[in-house]
């Protein structure tokens, strides 16, 4: 069973997503972009171009470059919207024999469905190339205000493209799905969709797993492009004021200005000021001219204030006006607000929406992709991917085991999705240690004493050996119900012991939050303590190793080296249990350096040629 593709077939841009591993994933197209311009063209050489390639030649081939076909799909030619759009479309449209719209491209006519199918075909091909599998089915989104004819036409477009269209979903519903709002009960949701060329409002009611569109509104000719126009007009007028040159007459300068304006607009969503720097923008009798201007966020907001106000007025109308104009609700009755469309990244828009409804809008998902993400979620539901029973939990706090020096060694980090299992091998701290205590803790602190103890048990029967030799395998396993099983097994003897802990995820949200905040508060103190313990452990190990090396080196190492090493051992022993961390670290380093001399001496000894006492040496006096 292949994946179902979720498609946001937009007026200006389209996007696609699939469910992967239970999560929606936006797919890149062949050009490596996450959105695809909804543009089709026949080039002057007769080649069909779709997407970015069609866009790149639109300026020189306007008659045969078809864009915004979503404005025409499923409508009659006599529809007032069609007649209005006909005024500004650069390509020719005429009435088809059935009263629909016929689009002239190249030497023939196409229906809007056929044009949209070309965009969908490209998305299909790119998705198949990306996923390495055939895609046969799709979920396609449409505006909530689309009538039956427009929905059917969109479905036909999908079928022409080679899809079996499993569902036509409303765009605001898809956005609500993306945020998981379909699980809400008896809630009213506003979807505020401010894209590049259109502004759509939808009022939804969610109950018992169903979503009903109560009202729609908006302005099909208001979008982010209007914001860009305002900025360009301002920059051109300021430059004319200061330099006396009208840049709008210079198409190349205007092109650079347009890009710079868009970049500045994006930047001002995260900064208070943006510099527009365009050297050699034009020239006059005095020589080259440059463009250098600062644009502040507050200036930008003043330039588009009326557009934002208009959008707020329209959404207020859609919510409060009586049916059929609006949903007939109070603003306070709205439970959730969802932001869709790139322009909603603007802080002034987010603030205006928040102020109107008195609540923080949902905006965590990329607003350019949220509809495609929602379409993928719907696809997943149809495919059986998304079920409540498959909703996975996470372990809220780190689960750890106590190791030498009372350090809490993490086994399962906080926010790990469960069920899961982690295994680590530990050893003994002392020679001939025949048992280990497994102390299981929960919490974010570095020292076990500061965390919550979940369980303690002993594994004994470990064969006596030098420290660090035994291998004790410890497994932490949490099942989907949050039950933790901890087991310890000695690999040599095969002996094992285990414990089951029921309450590893039963802390309340407040308790978890409190523990996390405590950990943050004591983070640097805990880090110091851990550093101390690690330094002491290292010192202990080094002393053990040094003493062992001295014992085993025997005659191979000179007395002088042995003495020096012993001196450093004594120096480290004197400080390792104290509180002076720099002293411990320095003594450890010194001993480590001295210890290397033992190794060097032993290697040198090994390489010296063996001298037999009676073997005649060349040139020596020999006795018989």
């Amino acid at each position, binding site marked *: 069973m292949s994946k179902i593709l979720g498609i946001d077939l937009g007026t200006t841009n389209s996007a696609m997503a699939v469910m992967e591993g239970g999560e929606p994933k936006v797919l890149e197209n062949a050009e490596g972009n996450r959105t695809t311009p909804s543009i089709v063209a026949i080039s*002057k*050489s007769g080649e069909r171009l779709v997407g970015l390639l069609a866009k790149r*030649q639109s300026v*020189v081939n306007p008659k045969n470059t078809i864009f915004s076909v979503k404005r025409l799909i499923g409508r009659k030619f006599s529809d007032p919207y069609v007649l209005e759009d006909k005024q500004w479309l650069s390509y020719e449209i005429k009435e088809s024999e059935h009263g629909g719209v016929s689009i002239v491209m190249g030497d023939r006519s196409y229906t809007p469905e056929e044009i949209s199918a070309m965009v969908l075909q490209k998305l299909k091909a790119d998705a198949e190339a990306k996923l390495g599998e055939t895609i046969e089915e799709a979920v396609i989104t449409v505006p909530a205000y689309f009538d039956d004819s427009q929905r059917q036409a969109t479905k036909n477009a999908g079928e022409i493209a080679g899809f079996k269209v499993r569902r036509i979903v409303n765009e605001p519903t898809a956005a609500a799905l993306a945020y998981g709002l379909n699980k809400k009960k008896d809630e009213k949701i506003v979807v505020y969709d401010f894209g590049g060329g259109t502004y759509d409002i939808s009022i939804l009611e969610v109950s018992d797993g169903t979503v*009903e569109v109560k009202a729609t509104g908006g302005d099909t000719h208001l979008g982010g492009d209007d914001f860009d126009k305002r900025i360009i007009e301002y920059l051109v007028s300021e430059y004319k004021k200061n330099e006396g040159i009208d840049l709008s007459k210079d198409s190349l300068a205007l092109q650079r200005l347009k890009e710079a304006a868009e970049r500045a607009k994006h930047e001002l969503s995260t900064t208070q000021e943006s510099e527009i720097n365009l050297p*050699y923008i034009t020239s006059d009798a005095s020589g080259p001219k440059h463009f250098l201007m600062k644009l502040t966020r507050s200036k930008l907001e003043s330039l588009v204030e009326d557009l934002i106000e208009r959008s707020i007025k329209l959404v207020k109308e859609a919510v409060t006006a009586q049916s059929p104009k609006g949903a007939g609700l109070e603003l306070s009755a709205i439970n959730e607000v969802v932001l869709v469309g790139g322009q909603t990244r603007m802080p002034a828009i987010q603030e205006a929406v928040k102020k109107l409804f008195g609540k923080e809008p949902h905006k965590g998902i990329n607003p350019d992709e949220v509809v495609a993400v929602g379409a993928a979620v719907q696809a997943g539901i149809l495919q059986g991917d998304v079920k409540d029973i498959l909703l996975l939990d996470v372990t809220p706090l780190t689960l750890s085991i106590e190791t030498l020096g009372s350090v809490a060694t993490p086994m399962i980090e906080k926010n790990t999705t469960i069920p899961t299992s982690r295994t680590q091998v530990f050893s003994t701290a002392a020679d001939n240690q025949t048992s280990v205590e497994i102390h299981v803790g929960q919490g974010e602190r570095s020292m076990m004493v500061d965390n919550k103890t979940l369980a303690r048990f002993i594994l004994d029967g470990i064969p006596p050996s030098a420290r660090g030799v035994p291998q004790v395998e410890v497994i932490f396993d949490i099942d989907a119900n949050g039950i933790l099983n901890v087991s310890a097994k000695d690999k040599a003897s095969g002996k094992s012991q285990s414990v089951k802990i029921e309450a590893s995820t039963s802390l309340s949200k407040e308790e978890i939050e409190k523990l996390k905040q405590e950990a943050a508060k004591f983070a640097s103190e805990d880090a110091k303590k851990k550093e101390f313990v690690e330094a002491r452990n290292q010192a202990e190990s080094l002393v053990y190793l040094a003493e062992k090396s001295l014992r085993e080196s025997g005659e191979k190492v000179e007395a002088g080296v042995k003495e020096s090493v012993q001196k450093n051992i004594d120096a480290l022993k004197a400080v390792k249990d104290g509180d002076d961390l720099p002293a411990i670290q320095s003594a450890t380093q010194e001993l480590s350096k001295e210890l290397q001399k033992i190794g060097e001496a032993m290697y040198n000894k090994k390489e010296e040629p063996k001298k037999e006492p009676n073997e005649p040496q060349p040139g020596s006096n020999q006795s018989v």
Partner: protein
Amino acid sequence: MEEKDKNNASDITEESELQKLERERDEYLEGWKRAKADFINYKHDESRRVEEMIAFSNKALIYELITVLDSFHIAITSHNNAKETKGLSIILGQLEESLKRFGLEKITVTPGVPFDPNTQEAIQEVVSDKPAGTVDEEVSRGYALHNKVIRPARVQVSKGQAS
């Protein structure tokens, strides 16, 4: 999830407890296999993603620097005096060489050759002695990063001689 719509009627079928359990078992097994397959595929993809990330980690920085390259080009052509702009040309060469080491290559544009939307973007159409539909002039350079176009060359396209 259902949208309240007259077109969505749900079918109700009777099934026995055994059939229900069998159906659920098959669903769960299918879901488990799918999740496992997704994970395996994700791991395969991961190494490719890491490689891509390494190759394109500088993309945003390089993309910003292309604007600086543009300014250098405009400055040099504006002065129209090779002697005066020699220093600028050398600095530009330095910058281009440095970026080349990170995979940035200039897209070659030849006037008189048919316009190619794969690597070029048409800014405007102009009257020209070059054949219609071919490149009249390159307005700003295009660049590819690791053989992938990150900024198409901006060109003026010829519409042929004025009639």
